[in-house]
């Protein structure tokens, strides 16, 4: 899933006849002031970052005049919201709200269908509404073959107690939101609050939107508007992570790899498989180890790619040991992985006698892999031990290599 920044999402909604407050995206204080003067006071100023729950982080504030705008803009631009440094702001007309509603559209992995969640109690987290006022929530599954009809939108709001002009206003909004969900291959659209203003208009006041990155090939207009890979990081990518993306992309036709830098740690860690990596990371922690990164690879990578990955893992400061731990491969050639890994250690000139390494790598061509690793002097295991055993071995080896340190 690729998140969409709020200004982009709101432009998409407006071009599909869903009202939003007037807004402007700016990156410096002076622009913020100018934008607010044009929009008219009072205004809302929000940090323009992909992280959610900005209000709770203090990154959504109101301003009554130009001086307040400058002060608040300066303040928010110096903030880091949920690990994302704020580089841009959204300056928006503050609405005069008479009622706050909630609506989201996403996929339900239980029923494997789109689910519309609507509530007459918006403005707070849906989890909180579910806990405190569950009677004010409707969950409605959409049959994609039939599509989502206007009358279904009407029934949802009517069942939530809306009537009169409010019902007339919000019905087409919900219907159009579903059209937007389909049209742009969205994985989630959340409008919270969907505001009823004192003038009786329904306006998408705050939104959150994610696009299916697997569908971007058929959404050419969106490809430069979404934040790629934003669901795989809880902060902007680090320099090392960006390098590893380049390593993976350099030979995109073979093998996939994902590298996530973790805080601290001394064990460089490379794991085969998206599931296996979860297992091994848990095991390292359980045995008292300190993994420095989370890395998975699969799909039969080339030797060059493996070398690049291993070098990247080892380049992080503080790495004092290395674990290669993979599930028994279905198609990844373990001898190729062995060659790539051994080359990385050779290139970096690491003395293997002083550097704790454990390899657990079984599967295609592992007789050759075993020979290569043994020849290079690396402690190698195939399917004679389990993946968890290998995690325990590296933790023990680290303790022996660095006695005095609290591992």
């Amino acid at each position, binding site marked *: 899933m690729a998140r969409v920044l709020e200004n982009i999402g709101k432009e998409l909604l407006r071009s599909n006849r869903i009202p939003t407050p007037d807004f402007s995206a700016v990156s410096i204080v002076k622009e913020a002031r100018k934008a607010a003067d044009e929009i008219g006071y009072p205004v809302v100023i929000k940090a323009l970052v992909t992280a959610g729950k900005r209000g709770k982080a203090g990154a959504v504030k109101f301003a009554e005049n130009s001086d307040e705008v400058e002060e608040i803009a300066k303040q928010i631009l110096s903030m880091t919201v949920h690990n994302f440094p704020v580089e841009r702001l959204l300056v928006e007309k503050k609405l005069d709200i008479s009622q706050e509603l909630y609506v989201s559209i996403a996929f339900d992995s239980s029923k494997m269908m789109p689910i519309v969640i609507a509530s007459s109690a918006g403005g707070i987290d849906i989890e909180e509404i579910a806990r405190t006022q569950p009677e004010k929530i409707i969950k409605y599954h959409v049959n*994609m073959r039939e599509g989502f009809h206007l009358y279904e939108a009407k029934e949802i709001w009517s069942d939530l107690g809306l009537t009169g002009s409010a019902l007339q206003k919000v019905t087409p909004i919900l219907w159009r939101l579903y059209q937007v969900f389909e049209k742009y291959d969205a994985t989630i659209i959340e409008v919270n609050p969907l505001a009823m203003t004192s003038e009786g208009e329904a306006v998408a006041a705050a939104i959150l939107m994610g696009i299916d990155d697997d569908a971007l090939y058929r959404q050419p207009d969106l490809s430069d508007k979404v934040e790629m890979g934003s669901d*795989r990081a809880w902060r902007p990518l680090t320099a090392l992570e960006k390098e590893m993306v380049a390593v993976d992309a350099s030979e995109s036709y073979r093998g996939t790899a994902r590298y996530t830098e973790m805080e601290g740690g001394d064990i460089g860690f490379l794991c085969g498989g*998206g599931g296996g990596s*979860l297992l091994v990371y848990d095991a390292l922690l359980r045995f008292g180890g300190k993994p420095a990164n989370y890395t998975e690879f699969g799909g039969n990578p080339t030797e060059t790619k493996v070398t690049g990955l291993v070098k990247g893992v080892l380049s992080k400061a503080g790495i004092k040991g290395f674990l290669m731990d*993979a*599930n028994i491969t*279905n198609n990844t050639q373990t001898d190729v992985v062995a060659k790539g890994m051994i080359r990385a250690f050779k290139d970096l000139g690491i003395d293997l006698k002083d550097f704790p390494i454990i390899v657990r790598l079984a599967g*295609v061509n592992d007789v050759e892999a075993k020979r290569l690793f043994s020849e290079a002097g690396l402690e190698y295991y195939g399917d004679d031990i389990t993946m968890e055993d290998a995690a325990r071995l590296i933790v023990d080896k680290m303790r022996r290599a660095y006695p005095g340190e609290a591992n």
Partner: protein
Amino acid sequence: MAILVDKNSKIVIQGITGREASMVTKHALAYGTKILAGVTPGKEGQDVEGIPVYDTLKRARQERELNISVVYVPPAFAYDAVMEAIGNGIKLILIITERIPRHDVAKFLLAAREANCTIVGPNSVGIINPEDRVKLGAIGGDNVERCFIPGEVGVISRSGGMTAECSWMVKKAGFGVSTSVSIGGDPLIGSPPKAILSLFEKDPKTKVVVMWGEPGTSYEEDVADFIKEGGFTKPLIAYIAGRFVEQMPEGTVFGHAASIIEGGMGRPSDKMKRLRDAGCHVADNFNDIIQILPQVMPK
């Protein structure tokens, strides 16, 4: 007996002429699996490892009786390939293709449910029944016996790689598998664990099931409810990976696309508790599966 595939499976491979599909076809034939036809538009008249290729599934069915399709078609064409299989009366479709747009997946899953057709995947590494030597997909590679030997344990896994590793753990414990099913790591799939468990329940050969779970989705919670309702009555051993994800900021994917904790939902610790409360044998360590299996295996 086993589930999903057996000696009577009449298999066709859609997208058979692709690089991976041809290699997998070769391995499957060497294992003893009968593959009757392949489909790749524009390539009728060719063959892959001696298997005839047809332009359309309709053409293939005029020549052969077919009831199972394995889909290797690239993501942009996968929706149509699956609809073609459903439209031609195929009753089990295994989708290997990764990264199919989610809206497409939701649409063909609905169409399959309405046509009473079972889908496994997308993003599955395969299904294997070692007794009948039937394997669909890359599962087991060219050295099947290393992980998969015939037996009475069913395996369900959200991870392709761990389907093999779990089956190998079963072998290490001194048992074999009835059927191992890689269900796919996506948030929208044709056969979540609960659906596979309901098949294992009815299979007399399967005595125990081992399940590999991950963070995200409600698949494991749904299994707990299913056991409580009496839908599955055999011993179930579950391992839930990714407990460290609970310590990370919410909304971050680790591993497979569906492996994400959002809005407090999908936490491994909650899944483990729910499964334990339902009477399931939850392994704290993955290694524990080796000790638990002989204890729960009916004599």
